[in-house]
């Protein structure tokens, strides 16, 4: 990835960080600047103390580390180093990677860790290289059995706690039904918070998060739609509860993907390590394009960073993928490091699901390269795209957001609301409303008769992410 000013801007937690970084763009502030020639750059920045801060940046995925005590991520030193690289005015001498840089690379969990570290394998310290024999540790069967039993016991206890929590949830939903859902939205804040806390205690964190975020979702909709939306949301939650209960009772022979969906939705998280170690997980190596980079602050003070990818290579695999990262809001980090338009060659491993969408990068084969190329979107009307959403809902009824791609669409305006429609008047009447936050940004698209687009449909609004027009690409940034 060639670092650009756009990357620096996107990564900066706030304007003041950029302003502070700007002041460090003098050559005098950097006694040492170096690169390994394969995507790692590092430098020493003279701060107010006697010891300069050590800064390292991976150009592959814009990962960074600085020894300063700043609580902003990235700090001004990391931003300044990236900025200097993007400017290209100062020379980064090609040098051997120092130990402190190697140390950071080896501890990295991100996608570039493998590629960056492998590039440095030649010089990296290795225990095997010492020649001394490593004593083989024999597993203790009794200890293993004990820990397996403990794991089993914990799991069973959690299952019991979750099931008890779901009983409470059923009761709570029944109470809401008894009162009626016409006025549910108005009082949803406090009542949802209480049941969400009980579900957290019951270790059903997925459902708890869903209920915690429900009032915000309802209030983002027009008032007239809220009662029907409350019915949909609570109906989906009950559907999940019923599916989980049946799974647990061994009654239903749900497909394995759907089983995984149900368990994840309830709160059984799958760690990155487990996913990477899963031999049955869907893996796809392809060229991917970043079509959307979204950032949203959750109720638990974590920022959810979504990077939506479109598969460019023609092969049998999911067309879309989404990388989801969570970072504490306090760090100020607001970007995953990828910019819209970036192209990456990577192997993705998908979380098990009836609709594989969420993924992790198992291995990157190249850094992210910024590209202005258009996407070869398949010829598909808006109506067909909507049908793909309906088919997806059939496969996974509690689907939240579904990526849709379409060609020959047209943006139209009704009052201060924008709608995406088929440009072909003969098509069945269907119009996807755009989020009101996109009104200003998307208004210039009104003048185009035909648009090829990618968006995220959440059942109420389309979040338009990528549009190809005769005047080039429009992105939601």
């Amino acid at each position, binding site marked *: 990835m060639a670092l650009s000013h756009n990357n620096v*801007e996107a990564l900066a937690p706030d304007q003041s960080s950029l302003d502070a970084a700007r002041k460090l763009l003098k050559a005098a502030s950097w006694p040492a600047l170096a690169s390994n020639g394969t995507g790692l750059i590092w430098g020493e920045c003279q701060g107010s103390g006697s010891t300069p801060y050590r800064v390292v940046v991976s150009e592959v995925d814009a990962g960074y580390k600085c020894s300063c005590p700043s609580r902003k991520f990235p700090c001004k030193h990391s931003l300044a180093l990236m900025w200097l690289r993007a400017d290209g005015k100062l020379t980064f001498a090609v040098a051997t990677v120092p130990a402190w840089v190697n140390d950071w690379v080896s501890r990295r969990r991100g996608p570039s860790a493998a590629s960056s570290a492998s590039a440095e394998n030649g010089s990296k310290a290795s225990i095997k290289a010492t020649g001394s024999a490593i004593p083989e540790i024999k597993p203790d069967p009794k200890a293993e059995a004990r820990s397996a039993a403990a794991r089993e016991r914990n799991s069973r206890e959690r299952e019991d706690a979750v099931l008890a929590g779901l009983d409470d949830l059923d009761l709570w939903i029944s109470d809401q039904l008894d009162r009626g*859902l016409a006025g549910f939205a108005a009082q949803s804040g406090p009542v949802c918070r209480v049941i969400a806390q009980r579900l957290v205690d019951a270790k059903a964190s997925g459902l708890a998060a869903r209920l915690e975020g429900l009032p915000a979702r309802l209030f983002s909709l027009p008032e007239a739609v809220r009662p029907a939306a409350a019915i949909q949301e609570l109906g989906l939650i*009950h559907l999940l509860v019923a599916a989980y209960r049946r799974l647990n009772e061994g009654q239903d022979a749900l497909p394995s993907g759907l089983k995984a969906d149900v368990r994840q939705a309830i709160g059984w998280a799958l760690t990155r390590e487990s996913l990477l170690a899963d031999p049955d997980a869907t893996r796809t190596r392809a060229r991917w394009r970043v079509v959307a980079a979204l950032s949203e602050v959750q109720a638990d003070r974590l920022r959810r960073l979504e990077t939506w990818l479109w598969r460019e290579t023609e092969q049998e695999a999911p067309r879309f993928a989404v990388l989801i990262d969570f970072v504490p809001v306090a760090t100020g980090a607001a970007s995953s490091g990828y910019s819209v338009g970036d192209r990456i060659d990577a192997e993705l491993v998908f979380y098990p699901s009836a609709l594989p969408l969420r993924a992790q990068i198992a291995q990157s084969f190249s850094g992210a390269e910024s590209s202005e190329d258009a996407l070869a979107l398949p010829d598909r009307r808006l109506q067909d795209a909507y049908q793909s959403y309906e088919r997806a809902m059939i496969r996974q*009824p509690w689907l939240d957001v579904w990526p849709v791609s379409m060609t020959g669409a047209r943006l139209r*305006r009704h009052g201060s609301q924008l709608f995406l429609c088929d440009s072909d008047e003969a098509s069945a009447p*269907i119009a*996807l409303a755009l989020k009101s936050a996109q009104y200003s940004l998307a208004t210039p698209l009104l003048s185009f008769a035909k648009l090829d687009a990618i968006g995220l449909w959440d059942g109420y609004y389309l979040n338009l992410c990528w549009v190809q027009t005769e005047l080039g690409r429009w992105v939601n940034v």
Partner: protein
Amino acid sequence: MNITTLKTHALPALLAGTGRQPLSFAGDLVELASGDAANAALNALSLTAQALRFERPLPPETFNAEPEIHDDRHILPDPMRRPLIRLLKEKRTSDDLELALAWAFGRSKVRPHPFDLPRIDAFVRAHAEHLGLTAQHWAARENDSTAQTQSYFEAEALDETTWAKASLAQRANFIADRRKEDAAAARALVEAIWAQENAEARVRLLMALETGLNVSDQPFLEGLAKDRAPRVRSLAQRFLARITGNAAESPALKACLERIRRSTTGLLKKRTTLALELPATVKEHEAKGWIRKTFGEVSCDELARALELTESALIEAAAKDENLLLALALMATQDRRLDLLEEIAGGQLKDAWEQLGRCGVQDLGLMPVEERLRWAEILIRPYSAKPPASYSAWSWLHRSLEGPVPELLMEPIIRSSRWITGLLEEQKAGSEWMELLAAVCPISLRPLLRTQLESLDAPLTMTALPLLDILESLKKVGHHEQ
């Protein structure tokens, strides 16, 4: 069980509350109750939810009609789009940077990319008239859905049928140009729309009638004696006085004459001396503004005739009064009498540039570019190779010229790095100065200025260098167009 059953039987009960309106498991819904009675309501909820989720989003009955805008301008090249947005979003950029960009867009007949308009909204709204038709439409659009469809025209495309729909500046320019060809026809156009215009528009259009002012305008001007706007009445009176040759009746001229004291000096050769007496209520810092206001509506010729002096004699008589010289310089600029201005700036008022700068931005009206540059050269020449290191003076010159300053000014300070170094060391100049230098630099000297700027610390040139890049790019696209 189908969707209709769920919506007619289950939905009302779910909304109203099953406590108040129990679910009736009649018809198709019987199977819900037979399966698991305890969870029947919850199951009905889930099924109704699914039924609602599969409802297709229908379009509204009507959509707004969008205007078709034929904007023939070239679009800013893609590589310059991000730098432009970055520059205009930068909090600390000056107004001069925005103005330089807007004027460069206007001169080169290039427009910003339509997708960038929302991102540079404030800039577009402030300078739409220079940015092409699409930008004008963007700036005029209202969030209100009932926004009326409006027409937008490039200045060159205006004719007698469309001129009234253009922006005020374009209309004033159109009328002034039309006056040169057919004064009566141009006045007739103004008369036709006069009643619908607001005060500001009436003043601007009346000012445009100054070109080719003649006796046939008299009835129209006399009719303006009862206009609601005092500025219109005053301007009309001034024009009338000029037509009838009875300039002394002009209230503006009377006000000037009241403040000028005339005396004679010299032992052997008696010379007329003029002095300007500022009203006691005008404080020192308000003097320049008062001079501009008082003398702004009077011409040199009118004043000279009223004082029974020739114009040269008038300047000579005012030689010892800096304020009166400044007033004469203002009048000479307004009358486009560069010969008189040269006499004033080359004689006693050597710092006419800075003095005029303190009076506020000079509206050079319809003065062509070459004449503007000559005007600026007259002001610059007395400074030789040592122009003032005053940001406000440079900024004033930039705004008055609405474009780059003459090479005469820039060349000496760019060829030697001493002036800029002095600026940085003595004046503690920051990036805003470098930005201004980039904004005012003539095209031919931009490579030299770039070399100078590149030798400075990056924080100083963070906005100046991208500004140069964009201005260069605009020039290239504009040149390609020609």
